[in-house]
């Protein structure tokens, strides 16, 4: 069974307690943000699970208010389900996941996600997290999970089996000290952004007041799954190298480097040895922190082929346009996917930008209008820490008026997505991308690409509007001229049609 294969790769990291003390780092800071983070973890998990199983994701999110600052959050997916024995690990063990050890572009990247939500629920409400899951074998597993903080294991509080035909996973978190708000930072906007960046996903959302919103999918085509690629020597850090070495099956460090990193050939070993002074015939399991640091420092002084970009899966311009069209209903939409570039001398990344004008585009909320910037990293929405993000600063540095946009008035939504196996986040909160010069330049170029197209559209629109206005003026006054002139001359009224056509030179478009 597919799910079993996926979960076979589970690995353990005993850090629950550490993260409990650092809940803020995981996004559990502030009453609104904490709620959004829970939704994010659940939805990300669901979409990833469905995609891995080759299923078009359909996600249901329902938030119900139980009391003051007290909510129940339900997230349901249609993915492959979780085999019973993995449920406590998935929801009750931090840093356990199928992704951490793989160098692959992914939404979550750290695998702390959904267990963090369990943890947060447990800390604030004292209640376990309820999980219903079925792999589609006619049996539903219902479990209540809590985390044993000291041992970093998931405790099963209660377990039931139900006979029913269904496939997927449903999680219910009961949380306190959170607040629901339909603001830029709230779950609604998070889901809206998720829907834009993932046009193959259908999201149903029920708000606490009962409002039902369906973000319908805009395409039936599944995105390409990113493939794991070995880290490039320029992108790797000492601790990464060390942890890879610890689990390597190679007999020598030389062998380990050649197999576990990309673009490191056997020919380079002499040079690495010379520059680092590390004996590469040692077993990788004997590698010390100092060895790792010296090797990484040697890498920086060496030349390597650029890293392969096949691990990067952009959303694609067409899909961004589909997503923006579906959710924003704009008059105009345009998107680009830029070719891969590298930053810090070797880490590949791709920037995508989309722009939508009119319709529901533009800043959200009452009494707000103008340019809205929506940021994504590996197609996951970045909601918080907007100010410190390279995407925000690049967008702000653009002289929008040159593109016919008044950032305070024009209803424009700017979509920005950075794709990379190593997105250079500013902090562990992963809500903003660091100002790497190459990334900044690339984001700026992408913005200008789409802004130019918007300007072209707006100019056409202005021209057409002026032409129509002009035509309207002639349509109004020329018949008066004809009638009054005929009256003056005491003759028959001339047909003004041909002249009208000549002076306006406009084909009257009934759609305008």
């Amino acid at each position, binding site marked *: 069974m597919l799910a079993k294969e996926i979960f076979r790769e589970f690995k353990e990291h005993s850090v629950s307690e550490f993260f409990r003390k650092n809940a803020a780092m995981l996004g559990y800071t502030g009453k609104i943000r904490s709620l959004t983070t829970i939704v994010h973890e659940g939805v990300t998990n669901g979409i990833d699970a469905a995609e891995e199983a080759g299923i078009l994701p359909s996600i249901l999110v329902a938030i119900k208010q139980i009391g003051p600052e007290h909510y129940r959050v339900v997230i349901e997916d249609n993915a492959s389900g979780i085999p019973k024995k993995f449920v406590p690990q998935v929801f009750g063990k931090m840093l356990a996941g199928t992704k951490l050890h793989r160098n692959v572009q992914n939404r979550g990247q750290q695998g702390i996600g959904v267990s963090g939500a369990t943890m947060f629920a447990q800390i604030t409400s004292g209640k376990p997290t309820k999980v219903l899951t079925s792999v589609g074998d006619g049996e539903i597993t219902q479990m209540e999970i809590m985390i044993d903080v000291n041992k970093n294991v998931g405790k099963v509080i209660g377990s039931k089996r139900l006979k029913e035909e269904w496939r997927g996973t449903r999680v219910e978190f009961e949380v306190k000290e959170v607040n629901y708000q339909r603001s830029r930072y709230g779950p609604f906007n998070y889901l809206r952004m998720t829907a834009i960046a993932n046009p193959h996903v259908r999201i149903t959302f029920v708000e606490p007041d009962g409002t039902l919103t369906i973000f319908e999918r805009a395409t039936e085509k599944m995105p390409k799954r990113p493939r794991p690629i070995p880290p490039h020597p320029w992108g790797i850090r000492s601790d990464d190298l060390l942890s890879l070495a610890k689990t390597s099956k190679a007999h020598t460090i030389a062998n380990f480097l050649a197999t576990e990193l990309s673009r490191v050939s056997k020919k380079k070993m002499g040079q690495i040895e010379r520059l680092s002074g590390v004996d590469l015939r040692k077993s990788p399991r004997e590698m010390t922190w100092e060895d790792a640091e010296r090797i990484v420092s040697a890498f920086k002084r060496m030349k390597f082929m650029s890293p392969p970009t096949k691990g990067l899966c952009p959303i694609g311009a067409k899909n961004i346009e589909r997503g923006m069209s579906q959710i924003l209903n704009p008059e105009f939409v345009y998107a680009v996917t830029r070719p891969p570039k590298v930053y810090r001398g070797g880490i590949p990344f791709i920037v995508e930008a989309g722009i939508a004008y009119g319709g529901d585009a533009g800043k959200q909320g009452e009494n707000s209008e103008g340019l809205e910037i929506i940021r994504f990293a590996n197609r996951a929405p970045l909601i918080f820490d907007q100010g410190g993000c390279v995407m925000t600063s690049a967008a702000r540095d653009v002289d929008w008026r040159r593109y016919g946009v008044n950032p305070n008035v024009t209803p424009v939504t700017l979509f920005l997505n950075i794709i990379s196996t190593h997105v250079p986040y500013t902090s562990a909160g992963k809500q903003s991308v660091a100002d790497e010069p190459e990334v900044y330049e690339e984001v700026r170029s992408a913005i200008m690409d789409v802004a130019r197209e918007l300007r072209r559209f707006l100019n056409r629109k202005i021209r057409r509007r002026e032409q129509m206005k002009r035509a309207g003026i002639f349509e109004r006054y020329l018949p008066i*001229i004809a009638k009054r002139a*005929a009256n*003056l001359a005491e003759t028959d009224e001339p047909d003004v049609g041909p002249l009208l056509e000549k002076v306006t030179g406009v084909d009257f478009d009934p759609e305008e």
Partner: protein
Amino acid sequence: MLTLTQRSESRRVKRAEQKLREFGADVVERIRRVEPPKLSVPSRSTSNIIYDEKSGFYTLGDKFGMRSAANVRQVKKFAQMLCAADFCKSLITSEKFATLREMYYTAEGWETGSFSDQAESNALVEDMEAAFGLKREDMGLMPEEDGAAVYGELVVREGDVRIDATKAGRAGYTIPPTIDDVEFLKCGAKRVLAVETMGMYHRLVQEEAWKKFNALIVGLKGQAARATRRFLKRANEELGLPVHIFTDGDPFGFHIAMVIISGSAKLAYINHELAVPNAEFIGVTASDIVEYDLPTDKLKECDIARLKQLQKDPRYNSEFWQTEIKKMLEIGKKAEQQAFSKYGLDYVVNEYLPSKLH
């Protein structure tokens, strides 16, 4: 007594009606030929207002602007002009007159919608006057205010009414805004004596100056109204009467006379219908102030400034005016026409005017 049989007025009206009809016909023809209707309007900008030495008044130069119905900024104005022309033609055919204000309000009912203010509709009328070479009065539009008072041997006909200007009471015959509609029937006078103030007018009527000088006494009431200027022009041209102008001895009096003689810059496009270039200013001059030792007032700041303006004005570019202006600036004094009362109420009739009217 001179008897006039010809009704010049009907000819004028025919001409106006004809012009408007031609305008309409031209527009219709252009629309049929799928050409944008156009109208060339002489420019009324200051750069196109020229003092014509030969005729002695301001006139428009040969610059003109093209109003086109194919221009998006002009098509509304063009339509309004046709509405106005149509309105005027209906005034003419029904023998009615309307004031500019009435036309402005009538425009509320036009298909083009109303004017934004009266200045806009007035400008349109001025365009039409300039473009067609017609006065607004010819097109059935009349000024708001009445003209001057006339006393003397003149018989006129307004519609069915005959008016004798010696039998219209002491206030005399009032020149109506529709003066072009008035027919001169008989005239016994040999000259026109136009005076600035009604005070002087009544003095002259009481002293029977109209008999003594065989004159039509015209009380201008300050700056002459369009209707008054038109009356003076007609009296001068149709009746062949020389016009004498008697005003206060100050820059404003000078200019009342000059506007009658040479016309104003603002109405340059129509001055050929208004100006009386051979009219004569007889006083009060600066020389008179000295010669008759008249009671005076000191020139005020604004008088001096005005006199200096007049010095440079091409209309005052003659030896007589330059000398008089210079002299007034030298003595720094001005005098009213009624200052002659110093020597008795009848002094002006018995001594001053005879010396001026030869």
